[in-house]
C-alpha cells in the first residue's frame, strides 16, 4: 500500500477523512500521552463524482441503540443472509429484498470502494430550498444600487422552484408580501423590538398552528418515515427533534404520503412565479427614508430584522432547508442586537475595548444573536451574513448566526466590489452534475466502535444533544452529543471531530483488531431530495508501549496542525490570548519530547521524525496568525478569520495557517519558496496565498522594469509573460475559492506589501545585524517577532530540557 502519505491521501480522496493518527493507540492512557488528540477532519459532502446513485434505503442494524448502517467493513454471512454489525456485533438478517445476495452479487454498500456511499430517499417528500433575503437599506445610494443589481441577478441563479422572500430593514423592518397585484404590500415592524415567532406569525396574519413559538419539537417524528434510520439513543422510531422530517411542512398539514408541495406562504413564493414582481420590487427599493441628523448613524435594526426573518421561517417552514441571507451595510444601531448606538462619537468596540470590558452592548447583542441562531438551528434554517462596510458591522456579535447554522459569513468593503459580487454569485455555484453545491438541514451522526468515544466537534454546527453511549464525558469543541446539525452544508464544509480512546490499559485489543467509525449524514439536497451519506472507516489498533513506531508512522502532521489550530481558535474565543499561546507552546513541547530523539539537555542532539518535521513550523505560523493574534485586526476580522478556519477543509485550512508562497523569476519555472524574508528578492515576483488574500509582490527590480514599461516592448515579451504568470495563477485561485479572496497587486516598497511582510518568517530584521543590509538579499522586516530559527532553537532547548 505504499507509504502512509499515500494511504492518507487515498483515504482522503475516498472518504474525505483526515485523521491525526492513522494507527490508534490501544488504550486510553497511551492515547493521552500522544499529546495530539485522536481526531479527524471530515468533509461530509466531499464532491465525489463517482458515487453511484442509490435510490433504496440503507439497511440498519436492528439493535435499538445502534442502528449503524450496513457497510463494506461488516462481516456478511451470505448463506445465512445475515450480517454482523461492526459496531455492536449484532447479527442482523438482511431484509427480504436482499434475498438474492451472494459473494458475487453484492449490493453497492458492501463494495470496499464504497466505504462512502450515498442513499437517496425517494419516498420522502422533496422540498424546494428557501431563500429569505434580508436587506439593509441604510446604505449609500450607489451601494444600494449595486446590491440591488446583485440580488436581481441572483434571481436567475436560483433554482426556479426555490421559494424566495424579501425583508428590508432600516429604522423599521419591512416584510414584503410577494405576488400581489395592483398594490405593493408589506408588513412593517418596529426595529426596536424583539418579536417571538408567535408575535411575528400573528402580525403577519399567518393563521394559527403554524409552528410552535420558539420552534420546539415541531415535527412529530412518528410519521412512518420511509426507511429513515432512527438514531441510536432515540427512544422509539421517532425522528430526533428538528431532523429533516418530510413533515417539515407548515401548518401541520400533511398527507399520509408526505406532501410533495409545500403551500407557499404569501411571503415566500416560488422564484419562477414572482421573479418579475421581485425584480420590480427590488428595483423600487429606496434607501431608508428616515432622516439621520448630523453626527449620528442611521438607525439600523439588523437584530430585529433577523429575528423576524427567523420567526417568519419558523412559523411557515419549520424543519425545512432554508437560508436567511442578510446583507448588512453597517452595524445594528438600535433595538435588540444593537452593537453600538447611533452616536458617531462613540466608535464601535475594538479588541482593546473588549479586553477592558468596555464594550457595553456586546454581551447583550451576542446573547440575542445566539438565541436567534439556536432558534434557526432548531428548524434547520441557516443564516448567511454578507457584511460590506468600511467599518465593522458587528460580526463578532452575530457570529453565532453563521457559526452554528452553517451559514456563510462574508466580509467586504463594499457591495460594489467584485469581492462581494463574485462571492455572492459563487454561493449559487453548481458542480459538474449541474447541482448546487449547497445542502440544507443536515444532521451528522457519528458512530464508533466500543473502544472509542466522541468528545466533540469543531465546525459550523450545533449540538443535537443526543447522548448516545459513545459520547465521551470529556468535551472538546461542541460536545456531549453524537449528533450535530448543519443547517447548511457546502462541499467544502469540514468539521473536526475529536475522539477519545476509552479502552483500558489492561484490556488489550486482539491482534489485528480494528477500530471503526461511521459518519451518517442525512441532508436535504438542493434538488429537494433527502439523502443520506454514509462513510465508514477503520484503523488498526497498536499498542503504544510495544509498537510506538507504528503509531508514530501513522501521524498526519497536516491534519494535526489544522486540528490544533481549530482547538486553539476555539479556545481563543473564550480564553485570553496569551493563555492559548502558552497552551499551544506546551503542547508542541510535549509532542517534541514525546516523539523527538535527543539526549537530555542537549538541544543539538534533537532529531524528530520526518512526518513530524513540519509540525513545529505550522505551529510557529499559527502562533503568529490572525487567528491567535488580534493586534491590527478588528474583532470582526478576527471573527471572520476564525469562522473560515472552522469550516474549510484541510488544504484550505493549512493555507490559512501557513500561507503559500510561490516565486516567479527568470531563473526557472515557478516554484514554491519558503515563507521567509529570504524569499523576497528583487528579481522575483512572489505570489502569496493566505486564503483570505492573494498577494502578488513584485521585487524591486521587477517593479522598476514594470514602471519603465519593458513589458510593452515586443522584445521583452518574456518579461510580459513573467508578469502575467502569477496573475494567471492568482486568477485560478480566485475563480475557485469561496469567499473570494482579496486580490492585492503590490511591489517592493508598496504600502500593500505589508500583507506579505507580516506573514513571512522574519528571519531578517533590523535586529539581526549580521545580515542587515547585506547577505543574500531578501527584504528585512521591521519587527521584534522572533524568527522561525529562534523559535526552533528555543523549542529544541525546551524539548530536551529535563526540567520542562
Amino acid at each position, binding site marked *: 500500500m505504499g507509504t502512509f502519505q499515500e494511504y492518507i491521501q487515498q483515504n482522503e480522496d475516498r472518504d474525505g477523512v483526515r485523521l491525526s493518527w492513522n494507527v490508534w493507540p490501544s488504550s486510553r492512557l497511551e492515547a493521552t500521552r500522544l499529546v495530539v488528540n485522536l481526531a479527524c477532519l471530515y468533509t461530509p459532502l466531499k464532491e465525489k463524482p463517482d458515487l453511484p446513485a442509490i435510490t433504496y434505503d440503507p439497511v440498519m442494524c436492528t439493535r435499538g441503540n445502534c442502528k449503524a448502517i450496513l457497510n463494506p467493513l461488516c462481516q456478511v454471512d451470505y448463506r445465512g443472509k445475515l450480517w454482523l454489525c461492526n459496531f455492536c456485533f449484532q447479527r442482523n438478517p438482511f431484509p427480504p429484498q436482499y434475498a438474492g445476495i451472494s459473494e458475487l452479487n453484492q449490493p453497492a454498500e458492501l463494495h470496499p470502494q464504497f466505504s462512502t456511499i450515498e442513499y437517496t430517499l425517494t419516498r420522502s417528500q422533496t422540498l424546494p430550498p428557501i431563500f429569505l433575503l434580508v436587506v439593509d437599506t441604510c446604505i449609500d445610494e450607489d451601494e444600494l444600487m449595486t446590491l440591488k443589481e446583485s440580488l436581481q441577478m441572483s434571481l436567475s441563479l436560483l433554482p426556479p422552484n426555490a421559494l424566495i422572500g424579501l425583508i428590508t430593514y432600516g429604522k*423599521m423592518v*419591512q416584510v414584503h408580501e410577494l405576488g400581489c397585484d395592483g*398594490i405593493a*404590500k408589506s*408588513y*412593517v*415592524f418596529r426595529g426596536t423590538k424583539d418579536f417571538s415567532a408567535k*408575535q411575528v406569525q400573528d*402580525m403577519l396574519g399567518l393563521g394559527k398552528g403554524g409552528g410552535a413559538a420558539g420552534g420546539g419539537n415541531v415535527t412529530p417524528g412518528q410519521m412512518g418515515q420511509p426507511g429513515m434510520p432512527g438514531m441510536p439513543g432515540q427512544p422509539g422510531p421517532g425522528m430526533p427533534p428538528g431532523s429533516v422530517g418530510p413533515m417539515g411542512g407548515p401548518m401541520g398539514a400533511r398527507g399520509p404520503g408526505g406532501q410533495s408541495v409545500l403551500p407557499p406562504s404569501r411571503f415566500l413564493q416560488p422564484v419562477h412565479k414572482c421573479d418579475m414582481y421581485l425584480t420590480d420590487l427590488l428595483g423600487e427599493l429606496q434607501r431608508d*427614508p428616515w432622516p439621520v441628523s448630523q453626527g449620528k448613524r442611521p438607525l439600523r435594526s439588523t437584530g430585529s430584522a433577523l429575528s423576524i426573518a427567523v420567526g417568519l421561517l419558523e412559523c411557515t417552514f419549520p424543519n425545512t432547508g432554508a437560508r436567511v441571507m442578510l446583507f448588512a451595510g453597517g452595524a445594528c444601531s438600535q433595538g435588540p442586537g444593537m452593537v453600538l448606538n447611533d452616536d458617531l462619537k462613540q466608535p464601535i468596540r475594538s479588541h482593546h475595548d473588549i479586553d477592558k470590558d468596555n464594550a457595553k452592548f456586546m454581551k447583550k447583542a451576542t446573547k440575542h444573536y445566539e438565541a436567534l441562531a439556536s432558534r434557526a438551528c432548531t428548524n434547520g434554517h441557516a443564516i448567511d451574513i454578507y457584511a460590506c462596510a468600511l467599518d465593522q458591522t458587528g460580526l463578532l456579535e452575530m457570529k453565532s448566526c453563521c457559526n452554528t447554522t452553517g451559514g456563510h459569513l462574508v466580509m467586504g468593503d463594499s457591495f460594489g466590489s467584485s469581492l462581494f459580487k463574485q462571492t455572492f454569485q459563487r454561493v449559487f455555484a453548481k458542480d459538474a452534475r449541474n447541482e448546487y453545491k449547497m445542502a440544507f438541514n443536515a444532521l451528522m451522526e457519528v458512530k464508533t466502535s466500543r473502544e472509542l468515544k466522541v468528545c466533540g466537534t469543531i465546525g459550523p454546527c450545533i449540538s443535537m444533544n443526543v447522548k448516545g453511549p459513545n459520547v465521551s464525558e470529556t468535551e472538546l469543541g461542541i460536545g456531549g452529543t453524537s449528533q450535530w446539525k448543519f443547517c447548511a452544508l457546502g462541499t467544502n464544509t469540514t468539521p473536526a471531530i475529536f475522539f477519545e480512546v476509552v479502552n483500558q490499559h489492561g484490556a488489550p485489543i486482539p491482534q489485528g483488531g480494528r477500530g471503526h467509525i461511521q459518519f451518517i449524514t442525512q441532508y436535504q439536497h438542493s434538488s429537494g431530495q433527502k439523502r443520506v451519506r454514509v462513510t465508514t472507516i477503520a484503523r488498526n489498533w497498536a499498542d503504544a508501549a510495544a509498537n510506538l513506531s507504528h503509531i508514530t508512522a501513522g501521524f498526519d502532521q497536516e491534519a494535526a496542525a489544522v486540528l490544533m489550530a481549530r482547538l486553539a481558535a476555539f479556545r481563543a474565543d473564550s480564553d485570553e490570548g496569551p493563555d492559548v499561546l502558552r497552551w499551544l507552546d506546551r503542547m508542541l513541547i510535549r509532542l517534541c519530547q514525546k516523539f523527538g530523539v535527543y539526549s537530555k539537555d542537549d538541544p543539538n542532539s534533537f532529531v524528530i521524525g520526518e512526518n513530524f518535521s513540519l509540525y513545529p513550523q505550522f505551529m510557529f505560523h499559527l502562533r503568529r496568525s490572525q487567528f491567535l493574534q488580534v493586534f491590527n485586526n478588528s474583532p470582526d476580522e478576527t471573527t471572520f478569520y476564525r469562522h473560515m478556519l472552522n469550516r474549510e477543509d484541510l488544504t484550505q485550512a493549512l493555507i490559512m495557517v501557513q500561507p503559500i508562497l510561490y516565486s516567479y523569476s527568470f531563473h526557472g519555472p515557478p516554484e514554491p519558496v519558503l515563507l521567509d524574508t529570504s524569499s523576497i528578492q528583487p528579481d522575483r515576483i512572489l505570489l502569496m496565498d493566505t486564503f483570505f488574500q492573494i498577494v502578488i509582490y513584485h521585487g524591486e527590480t521587477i517593479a522598476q522594469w514594470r514602471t519603465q514599461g519593458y513589458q510593452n516592448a515586443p522584445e521583452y515579451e518574456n518579461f510580459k509573460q513573467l508578469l502575467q504568470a502569477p496573475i494567471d495563477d492568482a486568477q485560478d485561485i480566485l475563480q475557485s475559492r469561496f469567499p473570494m479572496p482579496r486580490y492585492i497587486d503590490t511591489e517592493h516598497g508598496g504600502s500593500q506589501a505589508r500583507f506579505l511582510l507580516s506573514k513571512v518568517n522574519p528571519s531578517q530584521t533590523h535586529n539581526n545585524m549580521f545580515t542587515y543590509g547585506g547577505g543574500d538579499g531578501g527584504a528585512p522586516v521591521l519587527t521584534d517577532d522572533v524568527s522561525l530559527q529562534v523559535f526552533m532553537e528555543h523549542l529544541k532547548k525546551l524539548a530536551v530540557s529535563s526540567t520542562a
Partner: protein
Amino acid sequence: MNPNDQYFQQQQPGYGAPALGQNYGGMLAPPTRTPVMQNQPQQFPPSNGPNSMNPYGQPSPRPPMAQYGHSPLPPQATNPHQLAQQMGGMNLGDNSLKSPVPSMYPPMNGNVSPAPGSFPPRHPMASNLQASPMPPQPITPGMAPPRPGLMPPMQQQMGLASPQQYQNGPGMDNMGPPVNGQQFASPRPPMGAGFPASQPSGFPGHPPMPFQQQPPVQQQPQQQQGGYDSMGSRYPSSPSYPPGMSGPIPGPNSQPMPSQQQARRLDPDQMPSAIQVMEDDKRSRSGPFATNQKGLVPPLVTTPFVTQDQGNSGPRFVRSSMYSVPALPDMMKQTAVPFGLVISPFAQLEEGEQPPPVVDMGELGPVRCGRCKAYMCPFMQFIDGGRRFQCPFCKATSEVPAEYFQHLDHTGMRMDKYQRPELCLGSYEFVGTKDYCRNNVFPKPPAYIFVLDVSYNNVKSGLVHLLCQNIKSILQGLPRESINGQKSRVGFITYSKEVHFYNIKSSLAQPQMMVVGDVEDMFMPLLDGFLCDPVESENIIDQLMVQIPAMFADSRETETILGPAIKAGLEALKAAECVGKLLVFHSSLPIAEAPGRLKSRDERKLLGTEKEKTVLSPQTTFYNQLGQECAGFGCRIDLFVANNAFVDLATIGQVARLTGGQVYKYTYFQADLDGERLVEDVRRNVEQTVAFDSIMRVRTSTGVRPVDFYGHFFMSNTTDVETAGIDSDQAMTIEIKHDDKLTDEDGVYIQVAVLFTSPGGQRRLRIHNLALSVCNQMADLYRSCDLDTVMNLLMKQSVTKLTESTPKQIRDVLINRSAQILACYRKNCASPSSPGQLILPECMKLLPLYINCLLNCDALSGGSDMSIDDRTFNMFAVQTMHVGASLAYLYPRLVPLLESSTPAAAEDSPLMLPSPVRCTVDKLRDDGVYCLDNGIHMFLWIGLSVSPEWIHGVFNTNSAAQIDIDRTKLLELDNARSQEVRCVINQLRSTRQRHMRLTLVRPRDKLEFVFRKFLVEDKHGDASSSYVDFLCHLHKEIRNLLN
C-alpha cells in the same frame, strides 16, 4: 324713549313692563322705533352717533341709539325689553303690528273662548310665565271682560285654583291650581301693548306676558292700555276653569291636586306655544340686527336675521343666556336663571353677514393688555392722549406700542377707529406671529386622514365599497386654502386586526400598502408619501380606492381593533409634524387583543335606572387617555360608527369628545339605505371650515368668571379650552359664575379668543367680544333672558351630570330650578295676584314646555327602548349643539307637507317652507303628510286618507298602504308633487348639521311609536308627562315655593 316708556313709568313704577310681547317689540323694525326714541338721546352718545358706522358695518339705518338712553336702567338691559313692549304696544295700537298677532292668536282665542271651562286662555299663564308684570293685575275693566273668558282660565288652570279663587282675583291665594299648561300660550304682542301703561318708568320692564295675549288682535289694542293690568291680573279667573282644574294645591280650597284628568281638559292650544313664539319673533325681528349696544337681546335663533357687527359679536357666534346681568350675586342666586354663554366661534354666517376680517399686525402681533393679556377690542379705552389704553377686563392700563399709536379725536376716540376692525367690530381675527405657534414654528396645513375599518362588518354592509367609490368626490370638497403654497394633504389608513398604511406618493406606479401588526406599540412605518396632495396623487388614490375594496372583499375578520388605528393616525400626524383630523369609520366593538380592547356590556335594561351611569360612562380610561394624547397634538377625531351591534360608544366616543370631534352613528348600516346619508355627512364634515389645534380662552370683566365648560374639547387647566379641531356646527357652552358686585356703568365684558390653525395652515386668532349690561332690578333680568340659550345650557349641564348622578336627581334639579325661576319671578316681578295664577315672564313663557321636552328627550331620558349606544350617541350629539340645534332637538320641527288647507300655499313658491305646527298628535290630520325632524331623525308621516293622486305622484303607488316604508329616499319622479316634496325635504335637511335619514311612517305602523315620541307635547309611556300635565305639575311646585 318712547312715549310708551313714559307711560310705563308712570303706570308701573315697580315692575317691568307688561308681560306680553315686550321683547318682541324690540324686534320691530327700527324705523318704527326711531320716531319713538328721541326722548333721551344721550346715553351712548359716542357709540350711537352717526359716526358709529364702521367701515365694515352696515350702516345702521337707525338713528342714534340714544333712544335707549332714557330708560333709567342701563340702556342695554332694559331698553330692549321696554322698547319691545312699548313698541309692541304701540304697534298694536297702530295696527302696524297687528297682523302678526292676530294671525297667531286668533285661533287661540277662538279656542279658548269656546272652551273656557277647560282652559282659560293662556294669558294668565303666559303672562305669569314670562314677565309677569305686575301691572297686569289691574286688568282694565275693559280688557278684563274679554279676557276673563280667555285669560283667566290660564291662571287658574295653572294654579289649579278653584274657580272661585280665580275669580276672586289677586288677593286670593289660591295656591295655584294646577297650572298646567293652560295659560301658557300667550301671544305676546297683545300683552306688550297693554303693559306700557301700567309700568312705572323704572322698568318698562317686561311686563309679564300673560297668556292673555292671545286675545284677538282687535282686542289687543284695548288691552294694551288697560291690558296690562288685565293681563297681569290674573287672567283668571274665569270661573270656568276652576272647577276642573284645580286641585287647589294649597289653596284654601285646598282642592286636590290637579289630576291629570283635569289637565286633560285643558286645551293644549291655550298653552304657550313655541310655534307661536317663533312666529312672532320672526315677524317682528327678522332683518338686520345691529350689535351696537351692550346688552342687546338678539332675535330668537329661529328668526332669520342679519347681524350687523357694530362693536359686539353677533349672536351666531356668542349668545348669552341673559343680556342684563344682575349687579348683585344675590339676585342672581335668587332668580336661579342660569348665566352662561353659548359660543360657536366659527359659526356659519348668513347671507349678507360679513365674515370676521383678518387683521395682520405683522411682526408686532396682536396688541394685548399687559396684565390679563386680553386682545385689543372696541371696549379698550384709550387715555393719556392715546399713549395708553385701559383694559375693561382687568382695569389695568398698558402702553400702546409705538407702531400702534394713534392720536385721539375730540371725543377721546382713536382717529383710526373705523379703519381698524379690532377697534370697531365685535368679531375679527388676528394673524398670529411665531409666538402663537406650536414650538414657535409656523404650522403646515392640517391633514385629513381617513381611517377605515375593513373588517367583515364594514365590508359586508358595503361601507368600504361605498366610501372608496365616493372618496374622490368627497376629497374635492377639501378646503383648498393655501397660505404659503402648501395645501392640505390626505392620507389613508385601514385596519381590522392590524393597521394598514398606504403610500400614495404621486411618483409611484402603484400604491404601497404597509401593514403594521404590532398593535401593542403602534408606530408610523413610512416617512413620506403617506400624506399627499389629493390633486397631485389623484391617480394613485384612484388606484388605491379600487384596490381597497378588492383586497378586503373576502375579509372574514370580525375581531377588530380601534385604539391602535387611532394611534396610527396620530403617529402619522406626528411624523408629518402637522395637525389635522382623522375620520374614523368603525364598525364593531374592538375585541381583538390590542390596547383599547373592550368587553361587551350591553345592559340596556340599566337605562333609566339609578345604575345607568355605569353604562353611560367609559368602561376603561384608555380612550380618554388616547383622546387627550390626540388633543395634545392637535389631532381631531371624527367617529363614523356603522354598527350592527353594541360598540360601546360611551367608551370609544371619548376620543371624539376630547379632541373636539363629532360622533356619527349609522345603526345597521346598509350602503343602499344609508349610503347617501354617510357620504353627505362625510362631505359636510370635510368641507366645513375647521379651525385646527385651537385653544379658546374666555376673558370676562371682574365680577364674573367662566366656571364650567360644556362641549367637545379637552381642558388641561381650568381656563383654556383646547380642541384639536372645531367646526362651524359646534358650540361650546360656558357657565358663568357671578361672584362679585357689578356696577351699572361698566357692564359685563366678555372676550372670547380662539387661537387656531386655519385649513390653509395659517395661525390665527379669532376674537369675539360681547358686552352685557348690568341691572339692579330683577325684572330687567327676566326681560333680557334668552330662553333658548338657557335651555342649551341646562341641557348640556344635565347631560353631563348623567354620568355622575341618577336620572331622578337630574330631573328633580331641573324641575326645581325651573320652578324657582318662575316662582322668583312671580314673587318679585309680577304684581300681586292670585297665587292660583301661573304667571310667566314673557321671555320664559316656554320654559315649562322646553323643560318638559328636555326631561323627555333621548339624550336625557332615553330608556330601555333604545340601545345604550343610541343613548350615548344622543348625549354626544347634544354636547356640541349650538342654540339652534339644541332648540330643534328639544322641540322638533313638524312641517305639514300636505294639508287640505295648504294646496294653495304650495302654489306660491315651492321654495317656501310651510310653517311648522305644534308637535302634538292633535295637529296631525289623517289626510295630511307631515315631515318631522329634530336634527337627528327625520320622519315623513303619511296620513291614511291622503289623496291617492298625491300618493301616486310621490310614491308611485296607489295608496298609502302600499308604500314601501323601508325605503329611505323618495323616488325621483318627474312630477310637480314629487319634486316639491323632495325639494322641501332637501331644504329641511339643509338647515341641519347632519344629513338625516328619512323614515316613512304611516299611522299604526310599528315605527309610528318612535315617531310619536317626537311629538313632544304629548305624553308617551308612563315615565313622561305631556306638556299640559307638566305645566300643572310645575305650577304646583311654584306654588309650593311661594308658600
